[in-house]
């Protein structure tokens, strides 16, 4: 990066050496620290997925042994969930944008913010050590009694690493909640906040209240392995199922940690490129909170076939259907935002529209698996794999890429190649569907998850899926190059290249060190784009 080309007041100008980065408390720089770490983990976890799809290209096991395959999908899940998806948008875009959107100079606790990155780095590297030392073969869910009594892989080390990373999640959550409450600029009332801020707030609530339960269950797993405390061991009267309750009490809400931020991003992008205010702003804002609350009440839908009582199954099934309501409210409102809009298909918009389709498709499949009888057939098949990848990858990663492109000019002060951006967006959309749609079919036909070999009649769909994985990988690698190129050679970005509304666009690109030359005063709601009626 040619340092001297940045205006002296930009936040980059505070220093270019390692001290200026690794000891910074500037939320914008901490966002970059996270972005670099998460990009590394995304490619590590993605490489493992590619190897797995390579193995699955043929029915017999030829690339990996069954045991290595188990370790592959376990660590793919652990890395992608905890070291990429959970922190993805909050720790990068959220860290960068939340103070800007609030009209604040920084987050409420800047040093805590930096500390969260070090905790994250330590915990995630510790887990990587466990992987290199021998791996984990329990899947990312650490189900007992396999994880507690039988597995001889590095479960304790991996669980400890995830436990540590949980602290960084909680630190980020506390920082966001307090910042939204205490650092809003004059005139910035709750219902003038952009939806991105609302979703960050809802996400932070879930982070703070769900993560400690994961911590408790991981502590119990490690104590079980080290001291044999018996909580999950029937010999002492313990109950292995109890682990599933604890784990999903965290991990279902964690699903919303992994999708709410994506919803926030597309709520910013869609109005901008449709040149329309967000339709039903209050409903979208409050449905984020509803999703966060309902998310705590549905964990039992992961246990329909685990032997929980039929009555519990019925209640959890019903409550799971309820979550569809706030999600549908959002989808309908996003769609109506496009009505009579002057839509342009810039790169962020392509990603946002991709999100809309893929999230809807994955969400509807969620209704299938939330139905008791249907789930008996679909449980532990590729249908479930396809369902959550549509939400987590089709939804969240697509939104993450869209947001990265949308705010890239703000973060770097550079424009990227629009042509390459569009090519990458379309490539990922095609590659994604080619990878995961066949998995719905496979699951429906009865192909179970977590096997490295399979009967030959499934080969056609598996080959399609593996082909798609290659296309998808190309789509994800492309931005790495053209975004990197833009840092070196990109043309300078104006303050507001998309003519977007929002406080973050009213300051320079890249923003000055304290974000705003003068603390802004807010006099109107977000999404100040023309109404369709105004243009008659």
């Amino acid at each position, binding site marked *: 990066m040619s340092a001297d080309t940045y205006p002296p007041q930009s936040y980059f100008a505070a220093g270019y050496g390692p001290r200026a980065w690794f000891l910074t408390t500037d939320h914008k720089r901490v966002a970059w620290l996270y972005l670099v770490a998460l990009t590394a983990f995304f490619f590590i976890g993605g490489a493992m997925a590619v190897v797995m799809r390579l193995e699955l290209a043929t029915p017999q096991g030829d690339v990996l042994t069954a045991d290595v395959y188990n370790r592959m999908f376990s660590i793919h899940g652990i890395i992608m969930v905890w070291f990429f998806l959970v922190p993805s948008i909050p720790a990068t875009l959220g860290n960068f944008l939340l*103070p800007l959107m609030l009209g*604040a*100079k*920084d*987050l*409420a*606790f*800047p*040093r805590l913010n930096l500390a969260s990155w070090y905790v994250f780095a330590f915990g995630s590297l510790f887990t990587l050590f466990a992987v290199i030392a021998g791996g984990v073969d329990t899947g990312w869910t650490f189900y007992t009694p396999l994880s507690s009594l039988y597995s001889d892989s590095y479960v304790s080390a991996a669980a400890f690493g995830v436990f540590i990373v949980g602290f960084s999640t*909680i630190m980020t*959550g*506390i*920082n966001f*909640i*307090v*910042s939204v*409450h*205490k*650092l809003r600029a004059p005139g910035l009332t709750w219902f003038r906040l952009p939806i991105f801020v609302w979703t960050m707030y809802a996400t932070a609530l879930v982070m*703070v*209240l*769900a*993560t*400690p*339960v994961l*911590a*408790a*269950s991981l*502590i*119990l797993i490690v*104590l079980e392995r080290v*001291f*044999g*405390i*018996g*909580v999950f061991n029937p*010999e*002492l*009267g*313990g*109950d292995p199922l*109890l682990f599933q309750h*604890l784990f999903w*009490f965290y991990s279902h809400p964690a699903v919303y940690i992994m999708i709410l931020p994506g919803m926030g991003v597309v709520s910013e992008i869609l109005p901008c490129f449709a040149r329309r205010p967000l339709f039903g702003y209050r409903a979208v804002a409050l449905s984020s909170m509803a999703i966060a609350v309902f998310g705590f009440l549905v964990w039992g839908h992961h246990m329909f076939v685990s032997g929980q009582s039929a009555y519990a199954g019925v209640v959890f099934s019903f409550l799971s259907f309820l979550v569809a309501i706030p999600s549908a409210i959002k989808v309908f409102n996003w769609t109506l935002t496009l009505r009579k809009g002057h839509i342009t298909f810039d790169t962020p918009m392509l990603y946002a529209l991709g999100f809309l389709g893929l999230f809807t498709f994955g969400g509807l499949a969620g209704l299938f698996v939330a139905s008791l009888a249907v789930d008996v057939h679909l449980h532990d098949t590729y249908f479930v794999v396809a369902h959550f990848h549509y939400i987590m990858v089709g939804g969240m990663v697509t939104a993450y890429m869209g947001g990265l492109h949308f705010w890239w000019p703000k973060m770097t002060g550079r424009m990227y190649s629009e042509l390459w951006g569009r090519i990458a967006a379309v490539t990922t959309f095609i590659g994604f569907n080619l990878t995961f749609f066949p998995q719905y079919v496979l699951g429906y036909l009865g192909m179970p998850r977590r096997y490295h070999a399979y009967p030959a009649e499934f080969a056609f769909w598996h080959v399609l899926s593996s082909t798609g994985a290659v296309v998808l990988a190309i789509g994800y690698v492309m931005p790495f190059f053209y975004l990197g190129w833009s840092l070196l050679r990109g043309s300078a970005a104006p303050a507001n290249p998309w003519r977007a509304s929002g406080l973050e666009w009213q300051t320079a690109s890249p923003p000055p060190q*304290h974000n705003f030359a003068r603390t802004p005063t807010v006099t109107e709601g977000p999404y100040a784009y023309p109404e369709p009626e105004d243009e008659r």
Partner: protein
Amino acid sequence: MSERTQSEAFAAPRRELAADTFGMWIFLASEAMLFGALLLVFLAARIAYPQAFAAASGHLSLPLGTANTVVLITSSFTMALAHVFADAGRWRGATAGLAATGALGLVFLAVKGYEYRSEYLEGLAPVLGAPFRYEGPAPANAELFFNLYFTMTALHAAHLLGGIAVVGFVLARWRRTAAAGRLRRVTATGLYWHFVDVVWIFLFPVLYLIDR
């Protein structure tokens, strides 16, 4: 002493005090979920094996547990005094209150350590490869009780140790802390201390008083 804030994000120290206090409340909500999950695990086991748990609970030392409860409640009182003094700007009273609080915390840990030692000698602790020795009904379920007892009280003791360390840190940096910073630190530390106290108020009856 200047009226500076610690974080650049805040314009005024009062606002920063409110934010710090609020942040601590959020953190404590998170902590409550951690202990809540463990309490739930304990209650599930206790409901499954009521007699075995009641009998095992009788092996814990009621006098020591009661004494520690008194010690901890007293420490919360001295912590509250420290906050009252700090709020009034009476710094000597505040430091005295903090020092007393930390000392009482150490007393609690000493008593707890003595309890652990006698339980270990009795053969009730699952550590260091020690065999479990217990003459009572359903020894396997009793073992589960003691393991949960050690897990929960040790987690509580770790939190208390953290609290003592923070009190020590606040005192060590006292001279170099401005007035606004002192009040913020005493307020946040106090909230945390009271929370750790309240956790014990739950643990004591749940573990010690099942059948007495």
